[in-house]
């Protein structure tokens, strides 16, 4: 019941799209959708998603492997650094790149920026899976005559395939929904077309009709991911009794590997940092008073926290259901949370304006509706974390606790919660930092008069006051880096 309610909420944008698209009428829909341009844009969006997802998988898995399974120098340091790009919003990264490299525009530059910002979505879960995996299967493989590298490729990678697939799906959906990088680096994608439709002639209906295509693409992607999962079946995790994973000696490749990770870090973190510093030095505009910056930072933290916690409340039933009572229903509910994930923030924002005005007017332009929008956008991030965490508290423990006379609520508080809390906290941290970076829905739904770091950043860049914008960007990245750091440390990297 609770799961269905949570999923229902996540589907508000889809319902909204259905209402508005319905109003548009058939001829309008056909006019908007069945054009060559739509086909080209959809193709390009999918191509971008494919390229970025492949690149993120390569970098994410590679970095995770180096950090968890080899004798790489300064492994812990790289474990944290490799996760940090998650704190950089794509619009900040895109902006940094175009102001650093001449003629930085088009498909491949956009792919580069998106890859650098989103590969941690693959890195984090895969690193956690690699660090926590049971070495027994690998030992069996080695004993059957497969070398260390072949074992990694044929056994280890297969073990962590669900983590890779989950991360890759998030990246693909993220690329479909991203507007920041693609607009700045100028590549025409579907999401950009939707934003353009809003801007060009203030055409709300056309933009919304176009958005339905993204929903269709998302459903296709989810379906694709499900089929790989069905073939991969379930991987039983027999408790590895805390044995540390096998580490492979890199030998001559040690320093080149470290250099490669350093290069990724420089591109993903160094370029934005240098660009921000340069902007600050070149411009004469200055941000408002320290108090203003502090207020924006405080607001960012508060709304992101509210958003993250609300998302978690909604994700708990779905995640626990997926973990505890797997089956077609749980899978369906779980997947439905993804449907809104690829919709651009502005569509989510408008759908919640619609929801707030027509259904929940007392909440309209309150922090709650904004938090709800975050929940709608980022539910899948949290559901995945909860499902993973629930595995840390097998049902046998809860049954024992109940047989010892504790009621369900008390069992949850004294057994389930303490055991799943680290995982839930990690999920909350992930949603929290993602909320901090979110812009379009925040602009539409924030309480009137409330500024966050992201909105301040937007305000200042839209009037070319880059020096004034730089501190907000730096603070945004800095604050988002804290939960990211927590995630990477926890990932066992």
């Amino acid at each position: 019941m609770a799961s269905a309610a949570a999923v229902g909420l996540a589907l508000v944008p889809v319902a909204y799209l259905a209402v508005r698209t319905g109003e548009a009428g058939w001829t309008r829909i056909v006019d908007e959708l069945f054009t060559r341009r739509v086909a080209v844009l959809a193709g390009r969006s999918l191509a971008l998603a494919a390229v970025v997802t492949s690149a993120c998988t390569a970098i994410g898995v590679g970095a995770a492997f180096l950090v968890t399974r080899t004798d790489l120098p300064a492994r812990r340091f790289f474990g944290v650094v490799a996760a940090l790009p998650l704190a950089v919003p794509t619009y900040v990264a895109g902006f940094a790149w175009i102001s650093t490299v001449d003629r930085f525009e088009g498909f491949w530059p956009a792919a580069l920026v998106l890859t650098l910002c989103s590969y941690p979505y693959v890195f984090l879960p895969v690193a956690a899976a690699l660090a926590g995996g049971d070495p027994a299967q690998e030992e069996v493989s080695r004993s059957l005559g497969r070398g260390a590298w072949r074992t990694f490729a044929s056994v280890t990678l297969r073990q962590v395939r669900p983590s890779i697939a989950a991360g890759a799906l998030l990246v693909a959906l993220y690329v479909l929904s991203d507007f920041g990088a693609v607009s700045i680096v100028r590549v025409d994608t579907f999401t950009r077309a939707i934003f353009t439709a809003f801007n060009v002639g203030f055409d709300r209906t056309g933009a919304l009709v176009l958005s339905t295509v993204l929903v269709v693409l998302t459903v296709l992607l989810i379906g694709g991911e499900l089929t790989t999962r069905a073939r991969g079946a379930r991987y039983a995790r027999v408790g590895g009794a805390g044995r540390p994973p096998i580490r492979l000696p890199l030998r001559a490749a040690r320093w080149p590997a470290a250099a490669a990770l350093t290069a990724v870090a420089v591109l993903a973190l160094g370029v934005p940092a240098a660009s921000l510093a340069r902007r600050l030095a070149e411009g004469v505009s200055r941000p408002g008073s320290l108090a203003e910056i502090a207020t924006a930072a405080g607001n960012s933290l508060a709304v992101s926290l509210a958003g993250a916690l609300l998302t978690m409340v909604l994700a708990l039933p779905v995640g626990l259901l997926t973990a505890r009572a797997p089956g077609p229903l749980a899978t369906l509910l779980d997947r439905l949370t993804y449907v809104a994930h690829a919709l651009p923030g502005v569509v989510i924002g408008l759908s919640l304006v619609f929801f707030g005005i027509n259904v929940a007017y007392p909440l309209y332009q309150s922090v709650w509706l904004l938090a709800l929008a975050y929940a709608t956008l980022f539910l899948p991030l949290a559901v995945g974390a909860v499902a993973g965490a629930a595995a840390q508290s097998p049902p046998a423990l809860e049954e024992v606790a109940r047989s010892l006379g504790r009621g369900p609520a008390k069992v949850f508080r004294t057994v389930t919660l303490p055991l799943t809390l680290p995982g839930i906290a990690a999920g909350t941290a992930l949603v929290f930092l993602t909320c901090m970076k979110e812009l379009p829905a925040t602009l539409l739904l924030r309480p009137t008069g409330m500024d966050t770091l992201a909105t301040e950043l937007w305000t200042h860049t839209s009037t070319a006051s880059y020096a004034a914008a730089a501190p907000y960007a730096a603070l945004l990245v800095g604050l988002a880096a804290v939960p990211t750091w927590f995630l990477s440390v926890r990932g066992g990297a």
Partner: protein
Amino acid sequence: MLSVTGVRKSYGDVVALDGVDLDVPAGTLVAVLGPSGCGKTTLLRCVAGFEHIHSGRIDVDGRRVAGAGPHVPPHRRRVAVVPQEGALFPHLNVAANVAFGLDRAARRSGRVDEVLALVGLPGFGDRMPHQLSGGQQQRVAVARALAPRPPLVLLDEPFSALDAGLRADVRRDVRQALHTDGATALLVTHDQGEALSMADRVAVMNAGRIVQYGPPAAVYREPADPWVAGFVGEAVLLAATVDGTGAATALGRIALRGPAPAGLHTVLLRPEQLRISDNGGGVAATVVRHDFHGHDALVQLQLADGTRVTARVLDTTPPVVTGETVTVTVSGQAHTFPPRP
């Protein structure tokens, strides 16, 4: 203390419990013995309250916990469970694990130390579960179940994960602890040795029914049917022609334990009833196989008419060689199975 009457439970088309009746008297340890898939774990989960039953009823300590009327939730049944592999709470230390089912007053009463001592782990309260060996974890799990003095303790294959040497020790100590504490317990296991050595009574279960219920010796010596005979131990089943005083078999004439109607029967001997000698009387047999077990050995023999039988010989008897011819005698009486209802 526990009374299970006519309990049925199925999962879709699969019948897990097909009319189970079982009474566990206070202060006894009853083992439910059966092969995997026979429904024994389902029975335990129904008694614990983790599963709902479809018909029948379950009473614990004179109180209806399942059946017509409301289903009492697990935490109100006062039935403590010791699951497989212990399932200690990994985030709590040993003392906190043991105290889990206790109220505040009971915690201060020294009950925790008492039950830890009972299972042979005094002074282990501050350890964390991951610092314990498998056997110690299992002892703590038992202590945790005993601590609140529940009317009934359920043990779900609690020793299956332990290695053989350790298992015997833990079994003995747990049995001792249960008895000392006066607990009533239901042990679910597929290990006949465990059931026979620990339990006061054994309920043999097959295909969702209890096929025999009695003291270990009775179940072993007088199994209800050939299946039970084979499940609770090595069985020598012989075709026999029964007359007034005994039975004629391939091993010669054998006395019967009880009266049986004349006619063709299958009779049961246990391997330890067969004696091997290289001279002397008896029936001639060829040694087909010899499985050495240390304290004893199982020797498979082929009789002149082709019947194969198994003899258990102690290590003290002279060694037998495969292919050699020996003679076999029978000591004691054979068991005839009661007629099928």
